[in-house]
């Protein structure tokens, strides 16, 4: 009875841990991808000559923290747009006779660290011939602060559940010890060592911990797989964004060992504490 209760609590504990862990990993992965891809887009005054555009390019390359500057002509911009957002629906693109992005020749500037982006943008803005500088750090910053808050909340929730799990395991082992009190008494009188008397209870804690970790892992594996598959098939247009999400294998590469260690840790801690307290030889 008690072992069912403690396995159930631990399952919930590690399940929630796994959910939080997967969400955090997903956010992190998105943040990382965005940070890599996020660039500053520099657009020029209408009708600016290629010569001037080249000069602006040189100037930007000369700035500190700039790692990469790529030129995209208006035609390329339109092609990219079609590829990215219209997919195979070529008839949609054919509706446009002219390039709707005629004034969209641009430089995409990448900066080493997102923190340095603002300084670079300020400098580019002051350059002559620059019409507009688009910056997209907002989304990244929001995600980052959300991530920080989410981590803090998860740590608190997981810590509470950890304590509850340890207490329940301890209770379970304690019941086992009371049931076998006579047997333990006899063992001690016959000359059993502490280790011999305690080992079965510690093994019990270990097994409870392992089951309590394996169960939620199995559920999480199935659930995550299903969810990712569903997202990918349902939201075709978003598939490029979904590509940022780590696969089930990637998530479990970290989640599996961490959860197992957590489960074993809870089991061992709960049983060792109890056994030390109650199995005096």
């Amino acid at each position, binding site marked *: 009875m008690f072992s069912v209760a403690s396995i159930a609590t631990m399952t919930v504990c590690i399940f929630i841990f796994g959910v939080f862990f997967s969400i955090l990993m997903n956010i992190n992965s998105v943040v990382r991808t965005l940070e890599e891809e996020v660039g500053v887009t520099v657009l020029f005054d209408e009708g600016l000559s290629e010569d001037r555009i080249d000069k602006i390019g040189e100037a930007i390359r000369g700035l500190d923290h700039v790692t990469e500057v790529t030129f995209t002509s208006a035609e390329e911009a339109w092609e990219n747009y079609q590829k990215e957002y219209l997919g195979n629906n070529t008839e949609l693109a054919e509706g446009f006779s002219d390039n709707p992005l005629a004034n969209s020749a641009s430089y995409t500037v990448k900066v080493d660290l997102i923190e340095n982006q603002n300084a670079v943008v300020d400098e580019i803005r002051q350059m002559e011939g620059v019409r507009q500088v688009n910056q997209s750090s907002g989304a990244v910053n929001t995600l980052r602060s959300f991530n920080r808050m989410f981590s803090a909340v998860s740590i608190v929730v997981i810590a509470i559940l950890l304590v509850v799990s340890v207490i329940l395991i301890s209770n379970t082992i304690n019941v086992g010890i009371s049931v076998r009190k006579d047997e333990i008494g006899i063992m001690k*009188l*016959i*000359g059993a060592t502490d280790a011999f008397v305690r080992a079965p209870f510690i093994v019990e804690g270990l097994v409870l911990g392992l089951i309590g970790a394996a169960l939620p892992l199995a559920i999480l594996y199935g659930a995550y797989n299903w969810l990712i598959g569903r997202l990918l098939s349902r939201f075709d247009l978003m598939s490029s964004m979904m590509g940022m999400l780590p696969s089930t294998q990637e998530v479990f590469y970290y989640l599996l060992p961490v959860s197992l260690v957590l489960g074993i840790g809870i089991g061992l801690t709960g049983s060792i504490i109890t056994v030390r307290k109650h199995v005096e030889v």
Partner: protein
Amino acid sequence: MIDLDHVSKTYEKGLRAIDEVTLHVDEGEFVFVVGESGSGKSTLIRLLLKELDPTGGIITVNGRVLNTMKHRQIPSYRREVGVVFQDFRLLNDRNVYENVAFAQHVVEKPGRIIKKRVPETLRQVGLAEKYKSLPPQLSGGEQQRVAIARAIVNKPKILLADEPTGNLDPRNAYDIMKLLEEINNQGTTVLVVTHNRDLVNQFNKRVITMKHGVVAHDEEEGGYIEA
């Protein structure tokens, strides 16, 4: 073999169970310890098992000073001392064979030794036929034999018996005492705590009489003296 030198035991409530007891038991001796309840007999057994520590004096058993014995040395000490109780303390969900083998498992004896030694011991106590029975299926006398088998299966140097016949009828009580005498004849030092006067008087053994925590009489080949 067993030496008590001015040993006292005062419980926390201030009750003095044993008061400056000095006694000596030689190797191979058979000793009865008699006395009313509350005379300190059971405390004596518990001190000898190192379940309790004395509040004064020195206890030496088998050349080991119990007072200074470290916690981790207790198991190896207890393996030299077998013990049986009035209430048998058998594992009722395991059969006779398993109960005796349990004592060998606990001290981590190898399987081949257990297979040889357990039947041998059961023959010695006269229970070879009943090795498959569960304790509740046995008479009190038979249960005590199982307990004795368990106590001697690891060949202890000393056997302590705390009221071993307390729950038995005179016939069975006599047989159990005979069995303890046989075990003593094979070289084991035996110390029996009892208040069964008739039984003590039937065996001509050394009798230590305790009263109010002190040794009131100590006589070779004595009888039960009302202290």
